[in-house]
């Protein structure tokens, strides 16, 4: 019911990823990986999880950092949200992710919270998910079976259920260099420091006549997992993006979400806000494209 004292656990500081994987394998479900700790430590205080073993990933070199090249961006899973907020390349080129970093929690939580942790928590309102989805980001996973890649959305199996196996570690996120511009908008109960009631990320690539040659729209907090608004995307692809079409596309997006009513907001309000935020995110993406110049 209430916040309690942290339960006892064994603490491990592996020096390498293989060492971490060995520890995970040895302890199975009784082990949890420690990244930023902002979700895990709280869950342990609430006694909803009580792992006998905590494996600190931050002692392993090479799991954090932002590397950009001609092909795209690689972000280490342990890169903090504060580092993402402070990154010029992310702000200028991978803007929806920067938007998410700016509106996530508070400065003192962003210093700790990691992008990997945000995804692996698998909460439907995870702020980094919709931006990464519209940017076609891939998650890189290492486990006993070796390395594999999957789209970021595949990490989300259900509310707080991550699809990776207990022995797996997400090591990095890669994002292909985007040709267009995007935005992430987050609806909260106050101006800041809140979970998303609704989160919408939009990405568009527009030609010289503002015709949409590529569009991705992702919605957070309005379904058991973050989802792509594929019908809304189809409604915009090949059309001119204007205030009017943005509004129409918003309406379509509003029919694709399946939110719940809870203490934070009602289902009806969330659907209405998907409509509004989709429209606004598309228009903001369009403005950013206009400011940034076209290829």
């Amino acid at each position, binding site marked *: 019911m*209430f916040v309690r004292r942290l339960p006892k656990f064994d603490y491990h500081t592996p020096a390498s990823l293989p060492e971490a994987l060995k520890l995970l394998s040895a302890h199975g479900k009784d082990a949890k990986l420690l990244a930023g700790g902002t979700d895990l430590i709280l869950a342990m205080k609430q006694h909803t999880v009580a792992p006998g073993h905590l494996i600190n990933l931050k002692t392993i070199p090479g799991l954090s950092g932002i590397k950009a090249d001609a092909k795209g961006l690689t972000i280490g899973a342990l890169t903090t949200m504060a580092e993402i907020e402070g990154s010029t390349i992310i702000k200028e080129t991978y803007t929806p992710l920067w938007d998410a970093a700016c509106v996530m929690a508070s400065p003192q939580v962003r210093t700790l919270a990691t992008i990997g942790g945000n995804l692996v928590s698998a909460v439907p309102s995870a702020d980094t998910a919709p931006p990464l989805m519209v940017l076609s980001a891939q998650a890189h996973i290492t486990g006993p079976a070796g390395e594999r890649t999957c789209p970021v959305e595949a990490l989300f199996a259900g509310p707080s259920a991550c699809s990776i196996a207990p022995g797996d570690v997400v090591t990095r996120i890669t994002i292909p260099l985007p040709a267009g511009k995007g935005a992430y908008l987050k609806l909260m109960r106050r101006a*800041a420091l809140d979970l998303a009631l609704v989160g919408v990320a939009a990405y568009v690539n527009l030609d010289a006549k503002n015709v949409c040659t590529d569009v991705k729209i992702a919605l957070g907090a309005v379904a058991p997992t973050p989802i792509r608004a594929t019908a809304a995307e189809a409604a915009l692809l090949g059309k001119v993006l204007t205030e009017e079409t943005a509004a129409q596309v918003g309406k379509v997006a509003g029919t694709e979400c399946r939110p719940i009513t809870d203490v934070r907001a009602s289902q009806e309000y969330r659907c209405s806000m998907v409509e509004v935020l989709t429209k606004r995110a598309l228009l903001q993406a369009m403005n950013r494209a206009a400011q940034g110049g076209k290829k």
Partner: protein
Amino acid sequence: MAEYEVVGKPVERTDGRVKATGKARYAGDLVAPGMLHGKILRSPHAHAKILNIDTSKASKLPGVMAVITGKDFPGIPFGTRPDTRDQIPMPITKVHHFGEGVAAVAAIDEDTADAALDLITVEYEELPVVLTAEDALAPGAPLVNEFCKSNVAYTSDFVFGDPEEGFKQSDYIKEETFSSQRVAVGFIEPHACLAEVDATGRVLLQGSKQSPYPTWRHMCRALDLPLSKMRLVTPFVGGAFSGKHDPFDVDFAAVKLAQITNRPVKIVLNYDEVLAAYRQRNAMNATLKMGLKKNGKIMALKAECVLEGGPIAGIGPFNIYFFGAWLNLPYKVPAIEYHGKLVYSNRAPCGTVRGQEIVLAQYAVDSMIGIVAEDLGIDQVEIRAINAATDNWTTANGIVIDVSGLPECIEKSAQTIGWKESRKARPKGRGIGFSCASHPSGVRLGGHFGSSVLLKLQEDGKVILTHGGTEIGQGCNTVFCQMAAEVLGIPFEDVIQGPSDSDTAILDSGMFSDRCTFWDGNATIAAANDLKRQLAEIAAQELKVDPKELEFKKGNIYIKSNPEKGMNLLKAVRIAYYDLGTPLYGRGYWAATDIDLVDWKTGRGNLAHGIDFIATAIEMDVDRETGQVRLIRAAHGDDAGQPIHPVMLEGQVNGGSAHMTGHALMEDSLYDEKGRMLNFSWRDYKQPTALDVPEYIVDHVHTHDPYGPFGAKGAGEASSCSSLAAIANGVYDAVGVRIKDLPITAEKILAELKKKEGK
């Protein structure tokens, strides 16, 4: 306008430095040798019989020194009034609300105490839950409080003037219903205390308590201790806002565990416990009927109010009376009829919160003013100016207003916010909302309600000031030092704040109702004058004049008619100590016995001096697509008499307004149908952050109260009372939507907007 040396100047707060450096100690920072740590086990049910509590396994856990339950206390109920003694330290026969403490553990460390909680088994038999006022008043409703045979804890009814005639004479009559939600108090420091018992059985309690006096009286009663067997020393308190007057299970459990183990026991709560189980503001439902002339002059007011206050009466009897009493201000209401009921329920126990019941009453009245002004086609500022209380006005129920700066407050806030300009043109979705309010500078209730101050003038010329209240952040310590320095004519730095210790200070009734500047301030002046008399006698001997000829300024005592002839104040002090062997103590008290004791039955009484006034104008944008409200600027025209410390005064005005921004827009203590709280975490109980509040601008309206110290009035609570309606009225001005049930959420605004647009 008088010019002072220290009063009215922005001197450095006496506690500023210790707080800025992290050296200020709060209850949770205190340690004692051999100290044990306590934790409390809480009820998961809102209403249930306690069939059995088995603490045996917990007691056997290594490191656990004692486990107690309600049965470990004498069973003597206590309460705010003799006729409302309906509380016991911890429940015995049944639990009354979600999170109520049912057992407490003391152990050698926090981890052990925490683990012991899981080893206590409680057998409950769930009882039907009384959640709302409606539930409480339904025929055959289950009884909530075992000490009361009804769910109606208290009532207040009165009629003053001739309301029937007033309504007959009215050109326009409007009736509206308003409601307000359960909210937490929201101070940042959670409840905490350290209790010890000495070898004679004397208890020392160091706790985060706002008003040591009620804590002391209630605790001694419920623990069956003579008053002399309990000493309270209060450390710094991290905010209180009337949420920390009463003793709680935290305090009782710490004392009882200390008595049983013979070791100091410290209990520090986590904030989620505070949100779940401790003081909230009572929920309100009120119907108002207002009659006015077509020029906007109020002719009559009829009000019915139900307050739902949780399972104890607490300060509720005063709340239900005060709601009605204060409908008589800040506007002139010639005739009024009021009926109020306070009911019990199985939600968290209520006390009162910053601004007290006036917050809720004013929300209703000023929303109503906003509505009728619109209906009558009268300007929002004008209608308030027409009805504003003025100097030397007596309300229908007998409250005397000596000085009212309200007309000027209204003018200033309207000017600062740019009201006239906004009527000519403003952006779509932009609105300005007004409200006025007033607040007494401490009401006189029954029993021990005086304030007293002791000044010890040391042989080095420094004064140590002790008073019976507490520094909860409002700056009272600083203000009293300013006043003492001013009267004695010595530098502010020479007056030092002494400890808040019940052994050396006469405890006053408490830090609430805006009383401390006024009551303790007057006591400070009396104490300083007492010292002055003693020093003047000594100086008169030296200077060979009549003591009445002497003036005290800039560290000197000199002859008024011949300022060249004088002596250093320090010299007079040294004569006292070294030549005469006389210590110098100044004693002063102030009890306002000239004002009436409130007559609870008739509601009549001039219950307070120093009515302070405020006019608040808040500018905001409302997003028509999302319903979200963004507050831009708030202009407060504030009459607190003579500002004693202008910077701290502004802080009081800003703070109250910001606090109620949360109440207006985003705070709501939510319960499920079984009375279990749903959002007892700051994750889901949203208080305003720095980005949620507007820029605050305070215009002082400088008046002089004839009874106030240096002409000052209380300042801490007026803006809390004016901000709810200002926000509600602003939303209406922005998008034409009137929300009458708080909080005004984006969802509610959007739903109303859609209704208006026919969607």
